[in-house]
């Protein structure tokens, strides 16, 4: 086909024109590209560079070693032990199912645990090590190691886990750690990244919980460069963090072991023994107890159920959480209040016919026949209730309450244990607020013998006893030192009571345990320099109904356990120069002097001797029984050694 020159001219012109249009479109587009480059690389460069750094650098936490806990003599109570684990790396294992089958032929794997681990493994990248099972024995690890060629991707590994070498002895004091739960995370304000580590162990109860921050330490970290798949390329920097602070308790492991063993002879009991000078808590027992090691990895449901369904409440730390009517152990407070108020003198007497009559209501003395004429010393010695009914009416509840508060009643002591109770020290204002009712004289009478509204924990009773013994406002202390720094001793200031009045009360307590008519004579100590001064208490947990009284159901043995009286005993020793003060509560144990008293004596004697006390400290008539009782004790070996400073 021929084309005319004109045709060609038109064509060329058209192509040029269209080409120009297209060219300017292209130029425009390139302008847009250039503008976009400028926008991203110049204007937003900083922003993108930051994102790039975040992309590239990964912070990995290094968990610090948790602080150790020692007793006052430096014996470890909570330590970190090697935790042998078996870890799997999916990409190295190849056929995961086959490898696990082979592993199961060698060692036992819990099916539930295995399923959980496999689920986690499938969620994570193939090169991330996932724990299949932990807390294995060394034998298991050795078995796996020997068979390594048949188990690709299976790695025996070792980490740190909490261990309580003294097991149940310290479960209530030190508490336990456990894997951090979603509930913990929702409750804790603290945004410590360590908490995000799966199965990271944090303190759940007791000292482990209250001193969590000190014990945990500071997370270390390493900055690592990772690639897009998350694989570690190299470590850029490393900070090992700060290990947790070591704690030293005021508790003596041997005494604690003895206390727990001795309490375990009862169904449910608690005891506190402390120094009246420093306030150091030497032992805090609560029976029954439990093994905290079971909680470290998360306790199994049946085990936990067994603990929660036990009617003796092993999980409760009764020595600080339990609030009991103090019963007759409260009488020292009323005595001091009356002396302090000057409403009576030590030789003033009241007549006890076996009851007091207020209005038309009779308040009985525990001794139906009455005590006759009673003075201060006799009132404590024989625990005459009527004497205190009379005193209470003269002094008034507010003065009694004020006095008792100076001895620690109604006060929540700041010691690092869980759910420390303040008990109740009622007065008129308290009742008005609590029940919107006026205080009645009968309330005072009940309170005067430590019944009614008055509630106190064994710890509070021990503090009361220690303050009576020392005359100072000594404060209980559980933590002796944190990372070697001694915690200050508080409250060595005088209580502010007339020393003569205190002495009269102490003499009354001495009479309880050292005179033939004393309610606690049977728990005397037959060693001149270790005389014990104490006071028994038997507190009702029920009202004896008229019908019961008519039927004659008044003895404890006839009642179901949970309705029997609490047995209490407070004591300090030696009388002349007190070194130890103790309080014992045996829940629904019956008589204070017959059940709680011997316990208090055993504990005090053990503490004074620094070991199993010699039998000759006991009255000769009781030695055979005591020997048999000691034989029943399940003591750790070191605690069974005879005392070092045996008299």
């Amino acid at each position, binding site marked *: 086909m021929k084309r005319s020159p004109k045709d060609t001219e038109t064509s060329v012109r058209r192509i040029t024109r269209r080409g120009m249009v297209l060219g300017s479109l*292209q130029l425009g587009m390139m302008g847009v590209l250039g503008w976009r480059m400028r926008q991203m690389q110049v204007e937003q460069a900083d922003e993108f560079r930051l994102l790039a750094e975040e992309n590239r650098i990964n912070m990995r936490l290094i968990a610090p070693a948790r602080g150790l806990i020692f007793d006052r003599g430096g014996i470890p109570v909570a330590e970190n032990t090697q935790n042998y684990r078996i870890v799997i790396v999916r990409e190295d294992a190849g056929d995961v199912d086959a490898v696990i089958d082979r592993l199961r032929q060698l060692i036992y794997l819990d099916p539930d645990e295995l399923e959980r681990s496999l689920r986690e493994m499938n969620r994570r990248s193939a090169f991330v090590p996932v724990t299949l099972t932990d807390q294995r024995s060394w034998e298991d690890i050795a078995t796996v190691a020997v068979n390594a060629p048949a188990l690709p991707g299976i790695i025996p590994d070792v980490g740190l886990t909490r261990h309580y070498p003294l097991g149940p002895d310290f479960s209530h004091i030190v508490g336990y750690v456990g894997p951090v739960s979603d509930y913990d995370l929702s409750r804790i304000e603290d945004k410590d990244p360590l908490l995000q580590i799966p199965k990271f162990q944090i303190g759940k109860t007791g000292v482990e919980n209250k001193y969590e921050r000190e014990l945990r330490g500071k997370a270390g970290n390493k900055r690592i460069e990772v690639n897009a798949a998350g694989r570690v390329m190299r470590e850029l920097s490393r900070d090992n963090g700060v290990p947790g602070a070591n704690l030293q308790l005021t508790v003596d492991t041997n005494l604690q072991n003895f206390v727990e063993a001795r309490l375990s002879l009862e169904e449910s009991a608690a005891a506190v023994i402390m120094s009246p000078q420093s306030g150091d808590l030497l032992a805090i027992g609560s029976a029954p107890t439990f093994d905290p090691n079971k909680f470290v990895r998360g306790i199994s449901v049946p085990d936990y159920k067994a603990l929660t369904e036990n009617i003796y409440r092993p999980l409760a730390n009764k020595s600080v959480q339990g609030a009991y009517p103090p019963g007759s152990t409260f009488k020292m407070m009323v005595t001091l209040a009356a002396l302090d108020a000057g409403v009576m003198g030590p030789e003033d007497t009241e007549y006890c016919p076996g009851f007091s009559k207020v209005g038309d209501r009779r308040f009985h003395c525990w001794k139906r026949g009455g005590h006759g004429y009673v003075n201060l010393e006799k009132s404590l010695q024989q625990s005459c209730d009527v004497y205190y009914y009379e005193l209470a009416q003269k002094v008034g509840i507010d003065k009694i309450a004020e006095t008792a508060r100076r001895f620690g009643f109604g006060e929540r002591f700041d010691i690092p244990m869980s759910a420390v109770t303040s008990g109740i020290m009622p007065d008129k204002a308290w009742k008005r607020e609590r029940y919107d009712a006026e205080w009645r004289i009968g309330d005072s009478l009940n309170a005067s013998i430590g019944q009614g509204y008055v509630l106190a924990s064994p710890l509070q009773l021990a503090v009361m006893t220690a303050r009576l013994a020392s005359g100072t406002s000594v404060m209980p202390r559980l933590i002796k030192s944190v990372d070697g720094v001694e915690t200050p001793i508080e409250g060595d200031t005088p209580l502010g009571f007339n020393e003569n009045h205190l002495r009269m009360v102490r003499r009354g307590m001495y009479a309880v345990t050292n005179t033939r008519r004393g309610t606690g004579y049977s728990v005397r100590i037959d060693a001149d320099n270790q005389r014990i001064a104490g006071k028994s208490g038997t507190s009702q947990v029920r009202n004896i109904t008229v019908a019961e009284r008519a039927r004659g159901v008044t003895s404890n043995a006839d009642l179901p356990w949970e309705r029997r009286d609490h047995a209490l005993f407070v004591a300090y020793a030696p009388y002349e120069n007190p070194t130890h003060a103790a309080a014992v509560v045996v829940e629904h144990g019956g008589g204070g002097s017959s059940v709680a008293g011997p316990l208090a004596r055993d504990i005090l004697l053990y503490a004074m001797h620094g070991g199993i006390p010699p039998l000759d400290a006991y009255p000769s008539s009781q030695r055979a029984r005591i020997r048999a009782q000691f034989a029943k004790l399940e003591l750790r070996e070191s605690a069974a050694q005879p005392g070092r400073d045996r008299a």
Partner: protein
Amino acid sequence: MSYLEYYVKRVPTGPSKILHLNWPLAILLTAVACVGFLMLYSVAGGSMTPWVEPQMKRFALGMVLMIAIAMVPIWFWRNMAGLAYGASLLLLLGVEFFGSTGMGAQRWIDLGFIRLQPSELTKITLVMILAAYYDWLDIGKTSRPLWVAIPLLLILVPTYLVLRQPDLGTALLLVMGGGAVMFIAGVSWWYFGIVIAGGVGLVSAVFSSRGTSWQLLKDYQYRRIDTFLDPSSDPLGAGYHITQSKIALGSGGWTGRGFMQGTQSRLNFLPEKHTDFIFTTLAEEFGFLGAFSLLVLYALIILFCFYSALSNKDRFGSILTLGIGVTFFLFFAINMSMVMGLAPVVGVPLPLVSYGGSAMLVLMVAFGLTQSAHVHRPRSR
């Protein structure tokens, strides 16, 4: 033959043709290829293998091919246009039946010494056949419906075959490249207006139908569009590539992190870092200056194509050169828009820089054709 109306005798003959090559264009192409070698060396972690060496060999082969093609008179190539187009269609069909699957799509035919991507070849043969068609067509008939339908068919048949592979990027290039050639040839504005209006209408219909009973796309397709419009909405899923690409690009700053210092590509945050996303490595390591320089190089190549085409009185030669220029432009414009988050991620390589045999050779063949048109352009007087 329009060519004969000019001064054929002044067209160079014999070995002297080599002097009449568009040398600045050849030098520009080499410069861009060298940028490619540098970047492939970098993404390989400072190694000639596995990418730089084969890429260099291919470029050398491509250079030889380009010169060889340039030596052959342009009218020969015009006569070959129909054959080339037919052959590439057959190869596309061959992929349907014998192609091996790579990256989830059937794109290659293994010829033993090279794995041929017929879709790459089609980009050039389509431009050739269209240029030849408009060279042959009486200029007055350009905009008549029947004569518009024929090139449309020529475009849509290979587009359909490519879409079946599926290769959205190449299909887009074919449609846009073919459309551009039709535009250059002088097809009435009306047709383009109608197509653009139709496209706008379709897009608005797609969006406005969302959530209604006559919804035009599947839900997951809408989600893909969402991810394109806002990659940060799904940074670890579908938006991952584009987000990482933008991070690498943006973090380059003015001057970049330095050669071989780009952390994002080095640590594999970038997908396809040696092929479609190689521009991000360049931008990260050489910053705005490096990225913009490459854009300038590309612009110069386009400029030389324009200069060559508009100074060429031969209709086939000028349409072909402009068409190849536009195709080349589409390559880098789509690739750069894609990595900078201006366009959805479709598989289009960065021309002469991305690692890949077929694309490199086909482009060099295409530039060989423009060189041939340049050497054998009719000289007035």
